[in-house]
């Protein structure tokens, strides 16, 4: 039997937590954290709450509480006005952190249950006016079920329990009781009226999914969304109990074929589909399981870079691997490879390709592989009943798992001969029963039973009670002849073409814009390049002029007061402005953002006006020749002629440069109006899901 490890093996020594940990010491960072979090919750600032919850809490845990719990709730209570509800929320996080990083003691497990009870009581019976991020609400339900599962596993390992622990277990037999857990989840579903809300939404009376569960009319989303996620929680609990039918029934109000609130939180999306797929696998609805696994695996594959940032990264990757194992099982039993997207298929071949090839043989090795993959990928089944403490203590934590595994392998055994039938059927369009029996080395009646088994096993009963065909190769028997029907792919070409027509249209539009924009971009770049060169030339020219001026002035008689050569300075300034503005323009054209472009256009216009004014005043308005009276030059006519020549050159340069710059500005404005190319050209539904999409919701409200 394959190894089946439970992750929370109790280490007695780890339970004695770090001696240096003082539950009453509250570091400054924690104080700031709770004060802010409390304030944001009161202000219903979902965005900030989410930042604190996802970002800061993780960061602080990583930095200061890697191996010790957070400060106790009593220690932080004074900073939050001893707010009862906030303390419950804080403690919920406190326990979650403890479960994730340490091994909880029995006492802590019991306390955590009490805390969940109080919290859910408040939500169920009090009028909560909080607005909490979906992520947090999902984590609550998820953790509640996880801690229940963990408690059942813990209780089932009876062998090394101390008498004290058993006494506690006896005393608090209501804690993590399966009735309690199921009833809390059920109560959340019922009290929140979520089923009715989803019903009404179909008629357009509610906007639950569009608002992602948030309430923009000042109400609270907590009960509604907790109720929604509780349906997923119920599915998970029922899967853990082996009650797949009821689990799927609990999830039925959520339309799994569409995206919804469940897919807006990645952890929830993955958990939902994992359990949904697993339940369908156990119900022999392989095609449904394959379709949904394919969908979620493609989603994970597409957005893997986003997951790396998320605190639930490890969880998601673990489930990812497990689902590839389940997909390998499904495809071995029902080889509908056509349903699998190419990238998912590649990943699958990479991970489980050789196993799948060997699983087709249905020998002992193949069964061992089915066993291995199932054991690796199945949920951690639990035995919900409390043990009899008076009987000798034995571990029973693997009982539930063994039962499910046995049942599954039994099913695989029943399908043992189907793969060889399948491979023969693929070779023929018609074949007599007699001949096929000879090939398969069985007698005719046996072959008839095998063929009927094939039909029965490939035709599952769907959720609506109708028969659904899962067969990849189909056939029918006409008296003694088997007619094989190549199952044509029922791919929806219509949808395919529609999607691609839209995509293609968008691509053409985009390309036209790109073409236009590229053209203008190149023009602007070229103009800017030329301007930079001009600027450099002007700077060099003005420096040369300054030198000549200095030389000329030194030859004049020392007594005369020589006016400052403003026109040279201005020219120098114009050169620098030219260089800088064109360089800036080059930089801007690389950025494809509207804001940067508009800032640039405004800045350059202002500069242009200023520059124009200055050039006008200095070069054209003031009479330059009058500032340099003949008396200064005293016969140095060479210098005078030189000056008057260069003054007119300067005028010319000043004017042309202005024109050139204005030209560039016009070009940039055109680029600006055409607009940068949008990066994302196909509206992919999944992307926004990852970027905490309630932000979008808040803006639109």
């Amino acid at each position: 039997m394959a190894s089946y490890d439970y992750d929370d093996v109790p280490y007695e020594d780890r339970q004695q937590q770090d001696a240096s940990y003082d539950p009453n010491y509250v570091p400054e960072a924690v104080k700031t954290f709770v004060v802010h979090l409390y304030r944001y919750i009161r202000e219903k600032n979902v965005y900030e709450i989410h930042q604190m919850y996802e970002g800061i809490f993780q960061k602080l845990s990583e930095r200061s509480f890697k191996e010790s719990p957070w400060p106790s709730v009593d220690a932080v209570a004074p900073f939050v006005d001893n707010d009862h509800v906030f303390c419950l929320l804080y403690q919920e996080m406190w326990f979650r952190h403890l479960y994730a990083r340490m091994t909880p003691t029995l006492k802590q497990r019991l306390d955590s249950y009490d805390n969940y009870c109080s919290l859910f009581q408040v939500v169920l019976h009090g009028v909560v006016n909080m607005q909490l991020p979906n992520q947090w609400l999902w984590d609550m339900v998820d953790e509640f079920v996880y801690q229940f599962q963990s408690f059942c596993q813990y209780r089932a390992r009876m062998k090394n329990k101390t008498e004290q622990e058993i006494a506690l277990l006896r005393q608090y037999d209501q804690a993590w009781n399966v009735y309690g857990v199921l009833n809390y989840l059920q109560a959340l579903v019922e009290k929140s009226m979520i089923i009715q809300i989803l019903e009404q939404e179909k008629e357009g009376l509610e906007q639950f999914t569009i608002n992602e569960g948030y309430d923009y009319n000042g109400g609270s989303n907590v009960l509604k969304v907790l109720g929604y996620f509780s349906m997923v929680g119920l599915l998970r609990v029922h899967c853990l109990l082996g009650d797949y039918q009821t689990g799927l029934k609990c999830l039925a109000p959520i339309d799994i074929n569409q995206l919804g609130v469940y897919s807006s939180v990645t952890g929830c999306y993955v958990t939902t589909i994992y359990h949904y797929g697993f339940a369908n696998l156990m119900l022999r609805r392989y095609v449904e399981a394959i379709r949904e696994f394919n969908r979620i695996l493609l989603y994970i594959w597409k957005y893997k870079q986003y997951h790396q940032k998320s605190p639930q990264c490890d969880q998601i990757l673990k489930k990812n691997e497990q689902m590839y194992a389940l997909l390998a099982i499904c495809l071995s039993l029902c080889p509908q490879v056509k349903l699998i997207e190419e990238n998912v298929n590649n990943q699958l071949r990479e991970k489980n390709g050789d196993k799948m090839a060997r699983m087709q043989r249905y020998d002992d090795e193949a069964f061992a592989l089915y066993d291995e993959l199932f054991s690796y990928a199945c949920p951690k089944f639990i035995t919900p009943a409390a043990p009899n403490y008076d009987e000798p203590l034995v571990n029973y934590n693997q009982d539930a798992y063994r039962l499910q595994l046995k049942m599954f392998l039994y099913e695989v055994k029943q399908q043992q001969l189907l793969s060889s039938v399948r491979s023969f059927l693929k070779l023929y369009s018609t074949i007599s029963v007699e001949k096929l029996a000879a090939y398969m080395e069985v007698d005719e009646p046996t072959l008839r039973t095998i063929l009927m088994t094939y039909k029965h096993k490939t035709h599952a009963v769907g959720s609506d009670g109708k028969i659904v065909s899962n067969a990849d190769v189909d056939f029918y028997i006409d008296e003694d002849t088997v007619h094989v029907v190549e199952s044509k792919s029922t791919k929806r070409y219509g949808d395919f073409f529609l999607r691609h027509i839209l995509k293609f249209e968008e691509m053409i539009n985009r390309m036209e814009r790109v073409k236009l924009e590229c053209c203008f971009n190149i023009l602007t770049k070229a103009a800017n390049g030329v301007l930079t060169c001009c600027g450099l030339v002007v700077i060099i020219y003005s420096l040369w002029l300054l030198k000549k001026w200095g030389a000329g002035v030194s030859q004049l008689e020392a007594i005369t007061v020589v006016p400052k050569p403003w026109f040279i300075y201005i020219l120098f300034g114009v050169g620098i402005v030219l260089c800088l503005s064109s360089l800036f323009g080059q930089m801007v054209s690389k950025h494809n953002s509207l804001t940067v472009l508009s800032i640039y256009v405004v800045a350059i216009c202002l500069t242009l006006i200023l520059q124009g004014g200055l050039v006008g005043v200095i070069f054209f308005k003031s009479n330059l020749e009058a500032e340099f009276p003949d008396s200064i030059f005293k016969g140095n006519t060479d210098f005078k002629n030189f000056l008057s020549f260069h003054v007119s050159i300067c005028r010319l340069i000043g004017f042309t440069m202005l024109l050139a710059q204005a030209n560039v500005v016009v070009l940039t404005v055109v680029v600006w109006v055409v607009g940068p190319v949008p990066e994302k050209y196909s509206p992919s539904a999944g992307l926004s899901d990852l970027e905490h999409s309630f932000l979008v919701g808040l803006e639109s409200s």
Partner: protein
Amino acid sequence: MGREREVQKSEVSYTEHLLAVNPYNPDILPDLENYVHEQVSSQIYSLDANLCLLRLYQFEPERMSVQIVARILVKALMALPAPDFNLCLFLIPERVQMEEQFKTLIVLSHYLETARFHQFWDEVAKNRGIVEVVPGFEQAIQNYAIHVLSLTYQKVPRSVLAEAINIEGLSLDKFLEHQVANSGWVIEKGHGRGQLIVLPRNEFNEPDLRKNSADSIQLEHITQIFPILG
């Protein structure tokens, strides 16, 4: 008679009502047990109620009644081709499944799942006691056998049919007569080896019937490309 039926109806809805409002309440266990008896006596069936009862047994193993579990399992067998029997077994602890009558039921289920009707009927003959308590058992299995046959065959030899539904000779003739009249069966002369029964066509034994619905496009999808077409 009419009144009796009415009483029964309200009782049914009472249990179903309990199931809807209070599925996780240990107090409904006796009601559900009674409901199992009622399902047996009045030939009705509710998988959800039975799963709920098995779940309660799972939570409190000391309250489990082997006899009731056995009835639930027989009822589940009768629900084939739906996988109800397995769904129930998922909830029954292994040590309970080790009991003799459950072992027999599991063997029966195995024969049905692998379409070995001949062995199945032999086994049933040996264990009359287990299945006889539930009326309608044979007929339900015959329906299942016909279901599997009609998935597989367009024309089935009389002998194969006889073996599957465990009816022979004159009673088979009668049965066939009934089916010809009510279910659209047709009897043909076979190639020397007796009769052939033509089963009604469905999308599973006549794959051509299936393809039609798959390649249509809904109007609302077309509207997306109207601006482009225009």
